[in-house]
């Protein structure tokens, strides 16, 4: 059975949802505390959403000082898949496991609702569908990167998800937060680390509006970002 670890910080609030969703798709799960300094051998590390350390200084920044993060980096280097969701994505950006940075939504409003995203990477995640419905809930999801960095992401097929409409059309009208190039999720160059603002763990039951998130989490059973 594949083994997933869920990293919990003070202020994480999606760890229970993540655990439930990972169990549902077939993972064995265990939570690890941010002050732990080791993570045992596993197949996937999930950094869930929430407001780690109250978003003080910058969203995700204080997590940099937690002992667990150097262990996450070590695992990523050795080939373990790492998935950061929402605040988990912000943390991965702040610790430098993914390129870019996150700023306040262009509207200045916290946004929360259903969102369509398009799977845009040819070499990441084995998904059944190209266009997925996965909810978003964030105040700082405005992804920024300089022109050279954006070109590198595009050249290396690292843009995994873009915000779109139901038909899969990507445009400024389908961009909920002002992210450059409608970016909703990116992966590392070695394809072991994926960060995404939408919450796949909240889209794992058709009764809740979508089952598309389960497909995303299930793809990690094949150990593939």
């Amino acid at each position, binding site marked *: 059975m594949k083994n997933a670890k869920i990293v919990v910080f003070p202020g994480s609030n999606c760890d229970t949802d993540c655990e439930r969703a990972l169990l549902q798709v077939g993972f064995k799960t265990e939570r690890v505390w941010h002050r732990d300094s080791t993570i045992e051998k596993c197949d996937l590390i999930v950094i869930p959403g929430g407001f780690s350390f109250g978003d003080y*200084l910058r969203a995700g920044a204080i997590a*940099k*000082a937690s002992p667990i993060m150097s262990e996450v980096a070590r695992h990523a280097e050795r080939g373990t898949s790492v998935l950061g969701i929402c605040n988990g994505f912000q943390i991965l950006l702040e610790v430098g496991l993914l390129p870019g940075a996150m700023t*306040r939504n*262009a509207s200045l409003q916290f946004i929360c609702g259903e969102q369509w995203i398009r799977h845009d990477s040819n070499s990441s995640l084995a998904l059944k569908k190209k266009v997925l419905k996965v909810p978003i809930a964030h105040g700082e999801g405005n992804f*920024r990167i*300089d022109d050279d960095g954006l070109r590198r992401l595009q050249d290396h097929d690292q843009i995994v998800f873009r915000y779109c409409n139901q038909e899969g059309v990507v445009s400024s009208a389908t961009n909920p937060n002002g992210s450059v190039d409608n970016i909703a999720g990116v992966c590392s160059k070695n394809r072991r680390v994926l960060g995404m603002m939408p919450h796949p763990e909240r889209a794992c039951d058709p009764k809740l509006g979508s089952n598309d998130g389960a497909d995303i989490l299930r793809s990690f059973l094949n150990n593939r970002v």
Partner: protein
Amino acid sequence: MRVRLVIEKKKGVFDPEAKVIETSLLNLGHPIENAGLKKVIEFTLGDMDEETAKEKVAMMCTQILVNPVLEQYHFELIK
């Protein structure tokens, strides 16, 4: 030794919060422009020479206090 560190958005990085402040002041009839919002962090550092203090503060900024993608900083040492 006291450190006064100022962190601000890099030129060209849009700061919607500063823009909203600017707009609200304009709406109140104050003809201002180029509003900017900065963070100020102050702390006390033990006794050391100026060069060492500068190195230590720069290290703190690199490690955690400043996001180099979006922000830049400057600081002063107050004896």
